[in-house]
């Protein structure tokens, strides 16, 4: 217990509030009405796992998304936002549709990473769509291969009208 306390005292508060420049593209119909909280459902649509790890990284103690009222939820029923990574692998598209349908309205889709935006390096593979936009209506794009946690946080804060 003592070692724990000492460690806590040594580390102090870690969360960093600021990041790098934002390069997200926000569609005009998106309201800035999430100022208090934003509930996200993540959906891996055949990504290489890189974007997924960066989404996980925004939960670590240096970015700490929960600090800003952002949370990843277990059910699409609770979600405002669907964050898709990967180009959309054929065998997963049905599940992707079901997830989108299960979300209450109003709902928005975010394409995270180059693959989700236009297929990335997997463009032309026989079992992959060229971007999740061909399957679900994408509202926001966060480019990068993968986008850094900084960029993802910035984009989310912009969606919340906090940037």
């Amino acid at each position, binding site marked *: 217990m003592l*070692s*724990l306390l000492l*460690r806590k005292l040594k580390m102090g508060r*870690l969360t960093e509030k600021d990041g790098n420049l934002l390069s997200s593209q926000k569609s005009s119909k998106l309201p800035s009405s999430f100022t208090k909280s934003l509930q996200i459902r*993540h*959906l*891996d649509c*055949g*990504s*290489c*796992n*890189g*974007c*997924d*790890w*960066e*989404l*996980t*990284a925004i*939960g*670590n*103690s*240096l970015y700490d998304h929960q600090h800003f009222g952002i949370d*990843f939820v*277990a*059910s699409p029923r609770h979600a405002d936002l669907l964050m898709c990574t*990967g*180009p959309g*692998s*054929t*065998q*997963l598209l*049905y*599940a992707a549709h079901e*997830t989108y349908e299960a979300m209450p309205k109003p709902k928005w889709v975010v394409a995270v990473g180059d693959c989700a935006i236009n297929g*990335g*390096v*997997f463009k*032309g*593979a*026989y*079992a*992959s*769509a060229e971007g999740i936009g061909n399957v679900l209506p994408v509202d926001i794009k966060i480019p990068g*291969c*993968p986008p*850094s*946690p900084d960029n993802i946080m910035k984009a989310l804060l912009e969606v919340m009208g906090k940037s």
Partner: protein
Amino acid sequence: MLGLRESLQNYNPDIEIVEWEKHEGMIDVPSRDLPDLLTFCLSMSPRPIWLTHVVNDERQLGNGFCLYLVLHFPGNDFSVTLVAKDIKEDFPSLTLIYPALNWSEREAQDLFGLNAVGHPDPRSLVLHPGWSKEFYPLRKDHKVGKEAKAFKVAPLEFPQAHGEGIFEVPVGPIHAGIIEPGHFRFYTIGEAVLHLEAQLFFTHKGIEKLLEGKSIEEGLRIIERVCGVCTVSHALAYSEAVEKLAAIEVPRQVLLWRTILAELERAYNHVGDIGNMCAGVGFALGNANGSQCKEKLQRLNSDFFGHRFLRGIVVPGGLRSIPSQKDSQAILDRLHELAYDFEEWIPLLLNHDGFRQRAVNTGVLNPVSAIDLGVTGPAARASGIANDWRELHAHLLYPELKVNSMIEHGGDAWSRLVVRVKEARESFRFLKNLLQEGTKGPVYEYENSKLFLEQKLRPWQPAWGCVESPRGTDVIWLMMDDENKIYRCRIRSASYANWPAVPLTVPGNIVPDFPLINKSFELCYSCCDR
């Protein structure tokens, strides 16, 4: 090497090993003789390990379908490729002799339309129900077109369990959290699991077909993205294969930095995975420390190598760039701090009784199954099998570092955690030694690597590269055509080798233990599904 040749010739005097590399040879075998020869090889001591199993459509070369099975004989540090040519439609299944080949034989049925005669479980694996019949994408005469649109969703096929009180609990493909997709079907009585069926390949994109006809450089971009977190391992395995085909040796300076990159990748993955295992039991403290340490290591990657996942640095023939002596010193200093910090937070979880109680004796993989299934990486080492490729095979600068496989004997989730802890410690130590050399080294001219990409490679010659990733041994098998384009590239990742073992470790445990068991293996879906 001599011992191997002699024992094979004692077995059958007609067998001839054609050597083409220092540590490698090939044996032509008629496919009908494969089962007997494999049985003989597996009876040798030390027992050979499975590296990769490749089916290749060489009909336009007049060879029919060819089957390549790469085995490594650890005692001799020699790898033999058994080649069976001229397969028309059928080849004898080797699964009953060596269960490790189960998945790749089913994959050959799915993607090439070949028939593995005598396979105990010929269900389709990679292609889910719903694809049109006669859809064999890896055949050369198959042209990529609109197949994805022809896919009609159909229910997955699972065995039925009967009996009073038996329930099926279907989970996935989409899970609650930031995780990759896979469908798990638990057959339970009360809380205890009787049986688990795992249906993967939801992220199957058809990468191996996509690679065909690509140049070396285009191929590299895709290979680096087969797996998000084993970028360096895959790129190194690919580069090794290409360098064999070009018959060149890379300078020591390059080997040094490649070893550093491989160890940086291992370090950030291992600390992250240790944290993730804690997340599997809801132990927030361990998770917070692990993810924080991982983040700092990834920032180090980004600051000195330009990418958080170390992408875009390894190229066939060399490296894109190498940090200066000053930077090497800075990396060394930062790693020193992180290693110190690691030793401070690791006891917090190793001494935590609650965590220990959840992990000890959970998800036990017994050594016999591990050997039969060709399990690799920390999962195998936690079951007492010393098969670290860094120790088995003299490559990069590992012989100088004197790597020892870190072994534990419990085979449970706890052992897998301890193996990772020990290996992370070793990685920090290796990095310290390697970077000290980096602070003195000469400046590396990387222009060579640019020229290399235009170099003509030997066509129609199979070559493979193999690297120990944080999850186990990754193998990339490559064959070029006469226009310097990729003819066939087979990716056998560590996850692909380990996944079949995961469902075996679950029965007897309770359903809530599955996240911990799954995370203790920490396998990717992406490089398994491709």
